[in-house]
């Protein structure tokens, strides 16, 4: 068994690769490509402003790299095994990386024979600080502060240099675009309408363009800025190598570290993906953890009763009702529930939307009777708010489960051991509860395991109607806006939980049924 589980666990790694790669390629090949949502609806901007903004965003998210490079880089970040220079963690807990390599400026051969080499910086040596009259702990603190401050200065210098490089490159691109249009260069732009440097490189310097002077000037400026930027980068690197902060993760051998995965920053929300998931997942889980037991507690007994009196009135009535509920569209149910159950014009029993009252922060945790009379407290407030969403989640689920329970019970009723039990005079109640029911539970348990991953995914429709910030709407947004980081993270999470759940189901099968073994 242990070997089997280990094998399954190891097999999950390539499967996860496969799933994420597939999803990634789907975004990359979709019209608009990765990060399409970043540029849509940018409003009225003149072309140079827009080009500049795009250049900044491309630099920040590495959007101008080939798709496969972007995928590999993402893999490197989520993988617990990190290669290369070890990350550090600064005093406020942020991860600090060694500055990434700068790309060669485009078409540099037009303006300079050979790209300049960066200045060489030895690994930085920290200057001693004045520690007179300080305690040991205070000395350590003061040293850490001084290092952090020095690093900040150099870091800021580098990001300013890089920003100037980006600006100068955008300027060159702008001039090139004008030349491409004037000279009507075929294939001068790629399918996204961006300048295609490879075509220009093949064609050689555009000396015949009317604005060649300006192109040359912009190109030379870019090379100069590039020079400054690589120098600044080298300096930053030399300071980084002097370890201004504590090292992240756990070093195995030089060049290989084990540290926690980094899910990156969402393009569209501009916040860390892990924070976003941490914010949303509990809400989705709460809703589903309330809804699922309700479904089970109603559907399973109803299924049982229907099986016991198979063909009877209850069987027919419950079957018809559950199927009717199952076919009722959720969006309509949600809107009707708000219109009739929440509106003060009608019943007004439930709140319209959200998970908490606006004042919930100042509520006590438990219900409370105080000077202002009875207050419902945080727990009851939350339960009251989730009533309608849970209702919408629940009502469609009865049909499948009750039918499943009924079928399993009926199967067992026809078994030989039931007949034997009846023959030896076991009371009917005991036959149902002790023999048939227990045996019929198995498929229901395994079914729950497969339902679990779906619970994490959340429900887009219900979240939208009741304005609940759950996983469903997050994933939907990631898809429509082609948010690389967010989409890959949610995909990976759901895929991993799915795979684990399937494994768990198999293990449960083996435990529940002695006839199954994975030797």
């Amino acid at each position, binding site marked *: 068994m242990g070997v089997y589980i280990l094998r399954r666990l190891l097999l999950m790694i390539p499967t996860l690769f496969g799933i994420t790669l597939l999803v990634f390629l789907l975004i990359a090949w979709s*019209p*608009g490509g990765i990060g399409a*949502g970043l540029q*849509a*609806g940018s409003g*009225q*901007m*003149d*072309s*140079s*402003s*827009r080009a*500049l*903004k795009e250049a*900044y*965003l491309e630099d*920040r998210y590495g959007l101008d790299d080939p798709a496969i490079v972007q995928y590999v880089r993402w893999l490197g970040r989520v993988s617990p095994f990190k290669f290369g220079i070890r990350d550090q963690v*600064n005093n*406020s807990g942020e991860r600090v990386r060694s500055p990434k390599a700068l790309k060669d400026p485009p078409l540099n051969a037009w303006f300079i024979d050979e790209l300049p080499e960066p200045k060489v910086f030895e690994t930085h040596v920290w200057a001693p600080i004045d520690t007179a009259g300080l305690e040991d702990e205070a000395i350590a603190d003061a040293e850490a502060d001084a290092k952090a401050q020095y690093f900040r200065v150099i870091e*800021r210098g580098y*990001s*300013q240099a890089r920003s100037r490089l980006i600006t100068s490159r955008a300027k060159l691109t*702008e001039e090139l*675009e*004008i030349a491409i*249009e004037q000279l*009507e260069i075929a294939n001068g*732009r790629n399918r*996204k*309408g961006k300048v295609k440097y490879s075509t220009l490189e093949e064609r050689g310097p555009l000396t015949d363009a009317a604005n060649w002077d300006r192109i040359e000037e912009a190109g030379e400026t870019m090379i100069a800025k590039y020079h400054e930027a690589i120098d600044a980068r080298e300096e930053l690197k030399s300071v980084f190598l002097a370890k201004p902060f504590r090292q992240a993760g756990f070093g195995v051998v030089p060049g290989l570290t084990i540290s926690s995965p980094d899910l990156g920053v969402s393009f569209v*929300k*501009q*916040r*860390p993906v892990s*924070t976003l998931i941490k*914010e949303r997942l509990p809400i989705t889980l709460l809703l589903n953890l309330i809804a699922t037991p309700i479904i089970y507690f109603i559907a399973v007994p109803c299924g049982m009763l229907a099986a016991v009196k198979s063909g009877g009135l209850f069987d027919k009535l419950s079957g018809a009702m559950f199927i009717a509920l199952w076919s009722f569209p959720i969006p309509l149910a949600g*809107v009707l529930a*708000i*219109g009739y159950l*929440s*509106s*003060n*014009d009608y019943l007004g029993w439930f*709140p*319209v*939307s*959200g998970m908490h009252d*606006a004042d919930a922060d*100042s509520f*006590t*945790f*438990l219900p409370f009777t*105080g000077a202002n009379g009875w207050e419902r*407290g945080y727990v009851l407030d939350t339960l009251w708010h989730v009533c309608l969403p849970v209702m919408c989640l629940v009502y469609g689920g009865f049909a499948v489960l009750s039918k499943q329970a009924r079928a399993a019970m009926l199967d067992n009723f026809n078994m030989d051991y039931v007949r034997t039990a009846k023959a030896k005079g076991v009371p009917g109640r005991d036959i149902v509860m002790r023999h048939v029911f227990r045996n019929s539970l198995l498929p229901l348990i395994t079914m729950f395991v497969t339902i679990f991953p779906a619970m994490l995914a959340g429900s887009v429709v219900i979240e*939208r*109607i009741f*304005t609940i*910030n759950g996983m469903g709407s997050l994933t939907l947004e990631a898809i429509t*806006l*082609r948010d690389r980081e967010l989409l890959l993270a949610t995909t990976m999470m759901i895929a991993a939980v799915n795979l684990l759940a399937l494994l768990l189901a198999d293990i449960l099968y083996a435990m529940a049924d002695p006839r199954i073994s994975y030797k």
Partner: protein
Amino acid sequence: MQNKFGLKDFVLFLLVASVGIIAALSMRQNDRTWEKSELIESKIGSVEQQLARLENKVDTVDEQVAALDAKIEEGVAVSSVVGGLPNGQPAASNTGGGTPGAGVANDLMSVPIEIKEFPRPKYASDPTGNEDYHRGGVFTEIFEAQPDKVTPILGEDVYGRRVQDLVCETLGDYNPVTLEFEGHLAESWVYDPKGYWLRVKLRDKIRFSDGVEITAEDVRWSFHDYINNPELETESLRSIMIQIDRVEVLSDKVVEFHFVKPDAYNLQTALGFYILPKHFYEQFTPKQINQATGLTMGSGPYKFADLDPDNQWSPGETVVLVRNEQYWGQKPAIAERRFLSMTDDTARLTAFKNGEGSMILPSSPQYVDMVSRPDWAEKAYSLKWLNMRSGYSFVAWQCGPRGGDGAPTPFADKRVRQAMTLNLDRELMVRDIWSGLDAVAVGPVNPPSPAANPEIEPWPYDPERAVALLAEAGWIDRDGDGLLENERGDIFEFEFTRASGGGTAERMQKYIVDRCAAIGIRCVPKIVDWSLYNQILKTRDFDSIVLGWSATAPESDPTQIWHTNSIKNQGHNFIQWDAGQDVFIDKIKETLDDGERMKVFHQFHSLVHEEQPYTFIRVAKWKRFISKDFANVHPYPKGLEQNEYYQPMLRTGN
């Protein structure tokens, strides 16, 4: 197996029960400490308020003393003294724009420069004198979507901006009634007649919500070290502020802006960004600011009660702003402003009717439905009006070669474009598609903007004239198949591009296809995902496309959309329209005088009207329901001024 309740079971039961009781007791205990801390907090709050009131009184006394002093020292100029300059002459320094500094300074000696001075802003409709005026109450707006973040400048969506606008302030602002650009934090300014520099004096006694005085250094810092800090994700604003070369601090209260080149819109750009407190934001690392969701502080009439980065507002919570008791200007009556988000139309309306919201933006059908109900007028103000933020939607015709290098479309001919407009009954469209609530658009700028030419009437609906114009342009049904052909025998067929998923766009498409068929034109709809729009516009790969421009100010720089420079470089003149408009646009950009500029704008408007590169369909009126619990509610050409509202005495009983 027998079900006996044995000793072991009893012990187990006891254990479980005691754990449960302990948990419940500890929760109760926790709640009690919570209540105590709440009590303390509310006491501190009231003490703070009292302190603020005292401070205000001290300020008034100070002002009175100053006024007395001034009277005593009669003869000494107490004038605005822009910049506190020696001899009152602004000493301009080099502009960096290629003009020699000495030259500018010399010019100044001979040119009388107008100093623009503005009194402290007052409410357009001051409610304080009303009998039932009362301070307090909560005003709750319900948004249609959740803002992602409300941190200044980083939170870019329209909802985030609404919140930021209450907390942060700019140097200048539009007057809600006259729509003139006036000083807000700025008391006065001098603007280089040549447009290279602008010198601004801040008002005295303006404070951030923590009581720290706003200085010229905050202005410089906001521009150079916040907006232009490459480590902050402020690219969107940074890339449109490239016109400002630098900001210099001249004294504690005086800053000087230097522009790269003169431009009529430099003034609005320079005075239109948020002035942020340097002392507050400097405590944080760039990464903390980038990832902050609600680290918002400024000098506005409202503030966030809690600015602890570990306890800031985050999406999913209600945005709660409290009145800034130390506000330097006229204080609003409403004590608390809340912003909820509800994504569903029905939920919003229900919440409004339930009293959970004080203001919503109803959908057009909701507006029509509710207004027709007899008792609605008692419950809510139903507002519907055009203002400076009303955007317009249009169908754009490809006037140049499709795809930049393809064959010219039929719309290259002005007569064809006019015919397309004449062939559409836009009043009918507004009536049927937008429930008759909006207005027909007249051009690139629409009333109430002073930039709109008042003499221009929208083109009428006249299919006969359309057919005649098409015939004049060579489009006649030559073979009797019901479709128009040109001389070469090509039939008139074009592609109509629209975004998927919009009910309105679909109805527009159906109507346009029908109307085209009626006069013998084949219109082929092409439905694309919204995220593809940008690429289609950039590559000019369309015959006609439906789109809308939003507006944020009474007049916006026409260069981006209309200038022929924007044809190049994938700019926003995606229709590649070139009909001599540059003369007007360049002049608009050069003319610093508002009145003169409007005249040129009117000429430009006439040209666009005649040429019809777009068929202007409708201007969106703003529609709002506001609860009748509030008084002093007026729609303005600028929008709404909720700071003027108050909750009358009688209605605050509960």
